[in-house]
Structure formats: C-alpha cells, structure tokens
C-alpha cells in the first residue's frame, strides 16, 4: 500500500481536528480536538519514518506524545480551576484573563 494513503488519512484527521477547535465551545472538547491534530501529525511523522527507513520520526512522535500529555495536564488543571471559581465552562464566555 503506497504511503501516500497514510498521509491523506493524516491530513483528513488534522482537518477534522482543526474544524472541531473552531466549532466547539466547551474547552474540554477543544482539548480533545487538539489531541486529534497532534495524533494526525504523529501519523505523518511515523509514515515518513517508514518511507526513509529511519527511526528519527518515531522518536519525534514519542516526544510529541510527551508534550501532548503535558498539555493535557495543564489544560485540565485550568478547567478544574475555572470550575472551582464557578465560571461558565465555555470559551465564548471566558473572554477576560483577569484573575
């Protein structure tokens, strides 16, 4: 199977994730959509790693997973902090960045 199919699938998943970030308003779901985009990038990286027979792309994909895990931890911490302050969990309502 030509590797271009993997890249097309990756592009499709990335576009879906980007559309989700624009459409949804719940920050939890927006974080999930960012995960989708990162995973699409991972798929492209691993596909290129296979194309070259070089492991560097896989290492890059693993580092991306680490960064995604950090982003999730911070993002969910922010959401819990927002919830504690009884603010609406809605990115359209949360326009002010004052403490």
């Amino acid at each position, binding site marked *: 199977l*030509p*590797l*271009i199919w*993997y*890249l*097309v*699938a990756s*592009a*499709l*998943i*990335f*576009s*879906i*994730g*980007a*559309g989700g970030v*624009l*459409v*949804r*308003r*719940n920050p*939890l*779901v927006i*974080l*999930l959509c960012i*995960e*989708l985009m990162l*995973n699409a990038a991972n*798929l492209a990286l*691993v596909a290129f*790693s*296979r*194309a*070259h*027979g*070089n*492991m*560097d792309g*896989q*290492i890059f994909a*693993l*580092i991306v*997973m*680490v960064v*995604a*895990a*950090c*982003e*999730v*931890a*911070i993002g*969910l*911490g922010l*959401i*819990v902090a927002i*919830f*504690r*302050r009884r603010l609406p*969990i809605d990115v*359209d309502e949360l326009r002010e960045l004052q403490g």
Partner: protein
Amino acid sequence: MAEVIFFFAAIGAVAGAVGTVSLRNPFYAVLALVCHLLALAALFLLLRAEFVAAGQVIVYAGAVMVLYVFVVAYVGGTDEPLTASTGATLRFASIVFALALFVELTIALVGTSLSALDSEGAPYVPGFGTPAQVGELFLTRFLLGFEIASLLLLVAAVGAVILARRRAGLADPREISVAEVMRGREITATDAPPESMLEAGGPPQR
C-alpha cells in the same frame, strides 16, 4: 491483507475523529477519541512502529483518557446548548475552512514529487521500530531531548497541581467526623458553610 487492515483502521480513526468533534456530550466525545486512538495504534503497527503503537495505547488510551474521564465526571458533562451564541454563520465558515484545509493538504500531497510516497517505504530491516532500537536512540543521539522531556513532564505535573489546588477564597468541604455520625446527628445543607461542597448537594432529602 495490509490494505484491508489499513482501510478498517483508517475508517475507524476517521470515524472516531468525527465522533469526537460532533458528539454533544463530552463524555461520549472522550469515548470516541479512545476508539480513534486504538485505530491509530493499528495504523502505527502497519507502519512498523511497534513501540509507538504500544505507547499510544498505554499512555494515551490508558492514562490520559482516564484523566479526561475524571475531569468530565468532576466538571459534569454539561451539554452545549443547541443554539450557539456564536451563530450559525461562523459555524458554517469553520466547516468550510476545515474542508478547504483538507483539500489544500491533499493537493499538496498528491502533487508532490517525493518518490518514496508512492512506494511501500524503505526495505524492512529487522529490529526497525522495536523498543530496543528506540531505547538506544533515546540514550545516545537524542539524550538531550529525552532529558528535557522528563523535565517538561515534571514541570507540567507541578503546574497542574498548583493550578487545580483549592484556593484560599473558597471554603473547604466540611469534614464529617465519625463521632458526629455515631451521635446520629445528620448534617444537612442548612448548616453547611456557603460555597462548600455540602451546600452544592441541595436541600436534605427526606
């Protein structure tokens, strides 16, 4: 055989992605993302990235998604209202933008002159993508990146704890001592301090 597995996995991954974006309840969106991640792990296996696939299933579908489910359960799966304040025009424009992005990326991919993309990839070398090879690369060529990643994880863990800690402004949930329970005195919402978890429970149920 590889084609069949690819198309099943790719359809699963795309369907999971669509479900994540379109499902209204955040809890179901998380479950759709788990399906997406498992299908993506199958794609990684097809690309001979065994360790990445295993890491994907264990770290993402295992640990990170459990964190998501906990936060969704804590915050409460608040369904979004059907009538968005942003309006239907912006929503439509977003979908058009996503479609345009996909078309653009596909044109760039199909029109590329990279010859490796039309092949099955480089000839397979035994040991490609195994944990041994990954570990060797992490501890030799990419040692600096590995250490920085570990430091980043530490910083993120500390930051998450500081962000999610209980602020001084909000009252702590009232602790229920064993002695009070034994005395038969029930704690009702009326004697709950304001803004506490007990008050959020509502009026006493009789």
